[in-house]
């Protein structure tokens, strides 16, 4: 049990927790916009955490090849970190233009 394995376990479990939170938010929240909010967190944060954990684990027998593979993994993480908010923004714009109503409390006014 090296220190890199412990770091991998911590990162992967944190990513799994955020995936679980995002999925529960997608299933339970009442409105399309709030569901989109939960999904954006789940996509960008949890995927980056899990991919970083795998990159740390892959670095264990250190060689040039494993360093290259870890660099590619961090490239995927950077790509996901850029594209996931872009996709979320595009879906939000489509929902606004198509006229999806925001959720509000029954009988209450929008403050």
């Amino acid at each position, binding site marked *: 049990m090296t220190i890199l394995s412990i770091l991998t376990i911590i990162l992967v479990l944190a*990513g799994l927790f955020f995936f*679980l939170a995002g999925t529960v938010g997608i*299933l339970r929240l009442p409105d399309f916009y709030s569901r989109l909010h939960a*999904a954006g967190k789940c996509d960008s944060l949890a*995927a980056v955490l899990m991919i970083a954990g795998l990159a740390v684990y892959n670095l264990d027998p250190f060689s040039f090849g494993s360093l290259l593979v870890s660099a590619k993994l961090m490239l995927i993480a950077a790509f996901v970190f850029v594209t996931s908010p*872009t996709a979320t923004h595009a879906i939000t714009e*489509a929902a606004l*233009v198509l006229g999806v109503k925001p959720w509000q409390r029954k009988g209450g006014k929008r403050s």
Partner: protein
Amino acid sequence: MMPSFFLATGIALIMLMALSLLRAVIGPTILDRILGGNVIGSKTTVLLLLIGLLYNNLGMFVDIAIAYALLNFIATLGATKFFLRRLSVFIEDSEREERS
């Protein structure tokens, strides 16, 4: 010990993907379905990397994961643009019942 940990993580990810698929099936609007597909795709990217670690062949699966992340992003943008262009789409099921 570490391969069994990665196997358990992959199984947990597949269960979360099944729950996201539930939102993609029952979602009241079309954009909910697109959102469910997007979330499933981002989980599949991580799952491909876990499969690569389990087969001791991560160098090949990394390229597949890059291609899958690109495809997921382009598919989401394309579907969103498609439904943004034709504005006569039915948003909710109740609206469809009213119009017919």
